[in-house]
């Protein structure tokens, strides 16, 4: 069931004599959250962050004692025979660890059972391995007067707990994300009754939504980028500051999703970042083919955040009620928002004008 634009030959008349809307808004009271699953999922996320944290802490603590080069390779028990730039290697490893950590966290938050746990654990394993490898070379180099005299000693053993860390993350991840209990019926797609419009009347609907998760994640990434950037710059490795800049922009992009405003008016249905003022989504009124409300499931819309999936483009903060606007070309735009029915009824009415 959808609310399509009415035939243009029937102009919208002010509705007289109609009974009050019998369109009862669906009950979207948030279901209880499984406390144990929440605890395990949060622990998995924290555990997944550990390799990145270890890397940063070691870089901050041991970094000042390191020179421009770091021992990288040993053959047998002797001193090192391979070297790389201290901070360029750190930047490369940090980028890899950050990417793997992100994969691990997203997998831990995803409800796909065993595959989620395997991906969360696997990514954390490689993140742990990468982080611990750099930590091991840094410790070995710092323990020696010069990188050329560095002896591997016990440090290669560090990579084992790093690799094993994935088991911890995989075990903590439930593969069920944070499941809401009880599992509500999802197929609640509903048509909307267009708002009553008088000729010439102007309507402006506006509402804000967001997610503290995006604010925290974005801020952490940007802070990390600044730390990495300052460290790199201070040590003269300015050529790899690009890595920090990319990390900073990624953080800004996540932060931009932290607080958004949905507006429905003569300009169409628009989603704008309330924090950065960037327009994220837009459907012009002339392009609107239909408007519906639906409980948006992150799994069917491609995940959390601003996502593109085969169902369309969506801003999703969780399994929450939202508005779905279908374009004439068949694509769709969806946004989780409070009072989605009212936003949808305004959009349907304006699009029908």
């Amino acid at each position, binding site marked *: 069931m959808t609310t399509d634009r009415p035939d243009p030959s029937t102009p919208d008349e002010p509705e007289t004599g109609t009974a009050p809307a019998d369109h009862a808004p669906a009950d979207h009271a948030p279901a209880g959250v499984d406390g144990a699953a929440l605890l395990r999922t949060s622990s998995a996320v924290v555990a997944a962050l550990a390799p990145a944290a270890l890397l940063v802490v070691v870089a901050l603590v041991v970094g000042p004692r390191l020179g421009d080069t770091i021992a990288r390779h040993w053959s047998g028990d002797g001193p090192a025979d391979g070297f790389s730039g201290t901070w360029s290697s750190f930047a490369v490893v940090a980028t890899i660890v950050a990417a793997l950590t992100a994969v691990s966290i997203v997998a831990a938050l995803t409800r796909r059972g065993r595959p989620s746990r395997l991906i969360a654990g696997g990514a954390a394993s490689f993140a742990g391995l990468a982080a611990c490898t750099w930590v091991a070379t840094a410790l070995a180099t710092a323990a020696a007067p010069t990188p050329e005299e560095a002896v591997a000693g016990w440090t290669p053993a560090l990579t084992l707990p790093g690799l094993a860390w994935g088991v911890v993350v995989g075990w903590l991840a439930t593969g069920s994300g944070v499941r809401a209990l009880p599992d509500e019926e999802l197929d609640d797609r509903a048509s909307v009754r267009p708002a009553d419009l008088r000729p010439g009347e*102007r309507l402006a609907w506006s509402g804000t939504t967001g997610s503290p998760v995006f604010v925290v994640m974005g801020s952490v990434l940007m802070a990390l980028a600044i730390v990495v950037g300052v460290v790199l710059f201070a040590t003269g490795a300015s050529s790899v500051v690009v890595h920090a800049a990319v990390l900073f922009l990624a953080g800004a992009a996540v932060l931009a999703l932290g607080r958004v405003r949905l507006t429905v008016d003569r300009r169409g249905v628009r989603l704008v970042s309330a924090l950065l003022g960037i327009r994220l989504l837009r459907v012009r009124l002339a392009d609107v083919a239909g408007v519906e409300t639906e409980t948006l499931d992150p799994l069917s819309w491609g995940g959390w955040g601003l996502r593109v999936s085969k169902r369309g483009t969506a801003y999703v903060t969780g399994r929450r009620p939202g508005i779905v606007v279908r374009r004439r070309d068949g694509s769709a735009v969806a946004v989780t928002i409070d009072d989605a029915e009212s936003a949808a009824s305004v959009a349907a009415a304006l699009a029908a004008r």
Partner: protein
Amino acid sequence: MLIRLDPASEMPLADQVVTQIRRGIADGGIEIGERLPSARDLAAALAINMHTVLRAYDSLRTSGLIELRRGRGAVVIAGADAPTTALYDAAAALVRDAARLGIAPADLATIIRGMT
């Protein structure tokens, strides 16, 4: 929150904005702590002058309903008092009764205007 403007109405546009936001606060559509759209954005949405919206926001600020802060925009700081809420509830009931008799809100408004 929803704002409706009727350019054909005799009521000045700024007053209409004020009335609509007051109604939203009274019926719970706008909550305490909610941030209103920026004056520039609301003006663009309604195709009216930004100063009209600023005048409306200033009037709401004088009434103690919103707070205007540079950089933060307009934030709702007070809910409706009980008598105002009761009046809006009574008006909503009147609109429902009228609808049952086949009288549209616009016609009801004309009836009410004829009483003064």
